[in-house]
């Protein structure tokens, strides 16, 4: 999955490399994301992206959160 998207050079967490921590720079205005602590400046760890349009798995503190592709693509991060 990682290889496939390397060319896209997007800052979205959906295409970011696995097993690294990122700081969120921008996220869609969504109550549920805010509630789960996926807010601007939060530090998250990207675990993996599932194949075939599956969700991205990220870790905020000790909790793992799965985010569907269509939202995850809009969550921007920096290394």
């Amino acid at each position, binding site marked *: 999955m990682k290889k496939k998207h390397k060319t896209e050079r997007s800052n979205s967490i959906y295409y970011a490399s696995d097993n690294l921590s990122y700081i969120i720079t921008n996220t869609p205005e969504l109550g549920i994301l805010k509630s789960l602590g996926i807010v601007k400046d939060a530090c998250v760890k990207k675990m993996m992206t599932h194949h*075939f349009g599956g969700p991205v798995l990220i870790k905020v503190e*000790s909790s793992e959160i*799965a985010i569907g592709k269509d939202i995850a693509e809009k969550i921007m991060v920096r290394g």
Partner: protein
Amino acid sequence: MSGCHEVNYDTKVFDKPNKILLMGNPNVGKSVFFSNMTGISVVSSNFAGTTVSYTEGKLKLADETYNLIDVPGTYSMEATSEAEEVAVQFMNSKPVAILCVLDATNLERNIKLGLELQNYNVPIVYALNMVDVAKRHGVDVNVNLLSKELGAPVIATVAVKGEGFDRLKEELYKLIKGGHGACNKCASCPASNRREGDSWDRAREIAKRVRKNVDGKLSFIDRLGNNMLKPWPGIPIALFIIMISLAAVVGGGEVLREGLLLPLVNNILVPFFKSILQSFIPEGILLNVLIGEYGIFVIGFEWIIALILPYVFLFYIVFSFLEDSGILPRLSVLFDNIMRKMGIQGGSIITILMGYGCAVPAIIGSRVATTKKERLIVSTVVCFAVPCISQTGALISLFAGFSPILLVLMILLSLAVMAIVSSVLSRRLKGTIDPMVIEIPNLLLPNGKAYGKKLMIRMKHFLVEAEVPMLISIIIAALLKETGLLDSIAVYLEPIVSGWLGLPKEAVIALILGVVRREMAVAPLLAIEGLTALQAFVGGTVALLYLPCLSVFGILSKEFNAKVAVTIGVSTFISAFLVAGLINQMAHLFMSLGIA
């Protein structure tokens, strides 16, 4: 069933005196606290949002009684959802104290809510729950420092093991009597010089200070939980779990039925009632209606006790386990990509699986869907392609006489119908579907006591809810068959039943009863002798796709409206005859070609 405690919404509760509010994020174990402190059992599950509304119970502290209220789990007090609105209302209803449960594995988010609660100037005791899990994950929390930072007592607890409750009650009592918690009125109190600004920043700061990273040792279950989230080995594990669950329900049900319940019914119950009734009722129609081949006392026992009960029981054993262990959200993650292609999202898989037990709680449970469109699609899919466990039991028994291939074909057929219905609706219906965002709970072994209680509640519910419609359909069946009424009705339905579907005329009874309850669209087929494999499959197909039962109509009209209920009813009816008839006609075509 999530339907258990969501209807008791009564505004009078806000006026009650001596309220203690039990608050916290979703899935931090509040329901376990509530059960433990009040002795009232609540249905809890290992994923967010089981408690849609509140539950109340009596809590005794020393010799005084308080009303403990289990407020729905909230992430914030911003009233962005229905649950949060309820929480805000409770906070403004003059409670005497708050018991706020914090999840030690998720400090930032939980502390943030904890801080927000302090704005209401109500004494708070914090319970830092799941400290054991946090340690395994490599996080040790300095409880004393946290208590100082929050300016209120913090007690470490392991709720599922009952650790920390005594101290918690002591602190609560002291706080209420002393009236001196995080009152924020004295300058010495750290909570009083709270900084203005984002509670996120402050929460992060506190979390950083009280958290100490230690060498965590993930247990086997923790590692299994992590592995289940990756396609490899997650998908094989998931398929294995599904197979085991299916085998437990199907195989276990067969064993119970053949080994215990059928002999009990045929050798003891039925002969017993036969001999009693025969002793004072003369031979004739009445006696036949009661104890004839289709008599109320014969099929009543045979169908309910031997055919339905074992499967319902086993289904809830398995499903409750999947629920409490945290396996279900992992299935959502693994199958989100497929569900997304079907036009819905992974989270809906939980509702659909619930439908394999009974469509009614599934349709109520579809409330968790974030958009109306998704709710409608999920409910329709459940009505169309998901057989309830009673019907599954009947289908399994029907196919057991032939070949297991029929069962596999039936499963494939139902999955295909599910995919088609969902894809078509997602394209046709107006509106949007929100992509999945779910928090994955820790995988854990269900707590025996809570699990047992939940099972009891569910079985009781089933017996209460299903008994009347089952008895009604059995009485209709007995009357139709034993009075000869069936033969006169059958004449009219003959072209469809025998011509188009190729079923024997006794199958008419199944179509009539199927309106009342789903399994009754199958059960009468079991009694027909000389049924061919094709007829069994066609009959099974009609039953699978046929009208959902009367209770489902009721719940559809209640949760949506009469138009939705009628539309679903009519379209399932048409599709049942269409698909089953086509299967029959095509099979005959192939057979004649084969012979020629």
